[in-house]
């Protein structure tokens, strides 16, 4: 429990902010102490100098015993003390008893001609001392003393008040920092809990983080990530179910028909051919499925290489249309191929692009029960457009944005019936993207679908 508290981000943040705050507060306290204590010393020094100079001036104007006594009288019953000496630093008069420390400052310097501070070290000495010469020292000197114990008491009060204020500020600041750290990190703890649950498989998580800052955005990202993971989990499960079904059906056919042939139950040559044809068709279906999966895996691992060459699209598309015409006719559909004349060859991978056209046109035939499938090949100065239009069942509007996703199928039941793994359009989109082209889909349910593939004419761009 204790370890958990120390490991919390709120605790670490609190300690960090409190530490920074404390350092700056100590710095401020030290600076304030320095400013005020030096201000005191300066004030007292100036005061001593002024008073010493006044006394010296009075004595300069009328030097007599009466004046000396008058000066001493002025300094009685006050904090400061005064000592007046002759030019040879022999003490003449004093306001308070002369201590040994006072004597140490008298006569320390010879021939002082200006007012000056002899000592301002209030920590190590008992007095702040100033000296003022009387008539440039010819008549003597006025020594002024200010006891530092008074100053020390004042500085102590200053230090004490700064210390008390600092303690008060620290207490309030630490509490506020602790509260704010806790409030600020609460969403992070929620997100941690949510991600732990997501790791256990509970992908959909609700995080009610208010605002639009980075933390709120992160929580939204986590929620979106969870939804995406749930979607991929669902599609993966559907895909596995679909793949199992897709593989099981042809494999069951293959096994059943081949068993019959192995056992020699069918003797008629024509019947045998029919059975072998079924086995062949089902094998093609499995190969198609495995190829799709292989393509997808190559796209995802970036091993999908294009062998581009200048290709005549009219011929390429014509071949695809020709090979799919029997399928369309079998369903009673009309397949129309329109193209403008003199279509310039385009630099592309013909095998991959053939796969694209095959997938799109086959889809159009697969989901059209009556009417026609129309293929238009157009070209302008910069682009070549391949438009595949059908009069089929269409795609619901809500499914259109996801139609290009891997394993996405509009209706699972419909997909099982028509076959397919939900990979066809994903492969189409990726191949077109690798050709630096674009593909988009427009569809109205029960009316039809229009797929447009746009490829750049690289010769023009260059």
């Amino acid at each position, binding site marked *: 429990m204790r370890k958990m508290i120390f490991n919390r981000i709120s605790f670490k943040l609190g300690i960090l902010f409190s530490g920074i705050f404390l350092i700056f507060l100590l710095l401020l306290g030290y600076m304030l102490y320095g400013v005020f204590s030096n201000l005191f010393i300066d004030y007292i020094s100036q005061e001593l100098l002024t008073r010493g100079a006044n006394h010296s001036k009075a004595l300069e104007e009328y030097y007599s015993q009466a004046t000396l006594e008058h000066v001493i009288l002025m300094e009685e019953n006050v904090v400061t003390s005064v000592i007046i000496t002759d030019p040879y630093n022999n003490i003449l008069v004093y306001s308070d008893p002369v201590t040994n420390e006072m004597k140490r400052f008298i006569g320390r310097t010879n021939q002082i001609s200006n007012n000056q501070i002899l000592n301002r070290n209030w920590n190590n000495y008992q007095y702040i001392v100033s000296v003022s010469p009387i008539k440039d020292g010819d008549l003597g000197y006025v020594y002024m003393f200010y006891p530092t114990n008074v100053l020390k*008491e004042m500085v102590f009060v200053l230090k*004490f*008040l700064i210390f*008390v*204020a600092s303690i*008060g500020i620290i*207490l*309030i600041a630490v*509490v506020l920092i*602790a509260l704010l750290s806790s409030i600020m990190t609460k969403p992070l703890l929620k997100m941690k809990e949510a991600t732990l649950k997501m790791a256990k498989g509970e992908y959909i998580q609700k995080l009610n983080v208010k605002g639009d800052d980075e933390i709120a955005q992160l929580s939204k990202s986590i929620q979106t990530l969870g939804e995406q993971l749930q979607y991929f989990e669902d599609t993966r499960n559907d895909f596995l179910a679909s793949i199992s079904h897709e593989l099981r059906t042809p494999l069951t056919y293959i096994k059943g028909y081949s068993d019959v042939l192995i056992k020699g139950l069918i003797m008629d040559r024509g019947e045998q051919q029919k059975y072998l044809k079924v086995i062949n068709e089902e094998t093609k279906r499995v190969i198609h499925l495995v190829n799709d999966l292989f393509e997808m895996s190559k796209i995802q691992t970036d091993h999908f290489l294009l062998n581009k060459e200048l290709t005549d699209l009219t011929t390429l598309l014509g071949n695809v249309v020709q090979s799919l015409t029997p399928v369309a006719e079998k369903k009673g559909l009309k397949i129309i191929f329109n193209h403008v004349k003199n279509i310039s060859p385009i630099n592309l991978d013909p095998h991959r692009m053939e796969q694209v056209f095959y997938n799109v046109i086959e889809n159009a035939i697969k989901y059209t029960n009556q009417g026609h499938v129309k293929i238009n090949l157009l070209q302008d100065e910069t682009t070549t457009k391949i438009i595949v239009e059908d009069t089929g069942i269409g795609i619901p509007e809500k499914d259109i944005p996801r139609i290009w996703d891997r394993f996405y199928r509009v209706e699972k039941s419909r997909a099982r019936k028509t076959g397919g793994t939900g990979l066809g359009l994903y492969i189409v989109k990726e191949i077109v993207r690798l050709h630096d082209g674009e593909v988009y889909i427009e569809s109205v349910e029960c009316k039809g679908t229009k797929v447009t593939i746009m490829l750049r004419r690289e010769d023009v761009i260059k």
Partner: protein
Amino acid sequence: MNKFIWIILILVAITIGWSFILFVYMMSWSPPHHMGMMVGRATVYSQMFSWLRGTFFLIVLIVTITLIIWYIHDKKKK
């Protein structure tokens, strides 16, 4: 730890903090002595102790009120 203990600790810390700041404010802007801040440590200590006495009673009052609320809350919960 019970959240009421945290609340009590927070309230005590804030009360002491504000009390210290107000004491310094009082000593600076309306000192109790005619000498202002130029008083010795004995006077400051004496002022501080009498101020803290008041703070102590205030803390006792706050803690008591919080404990009463805690007791009522606990009873309702049960």
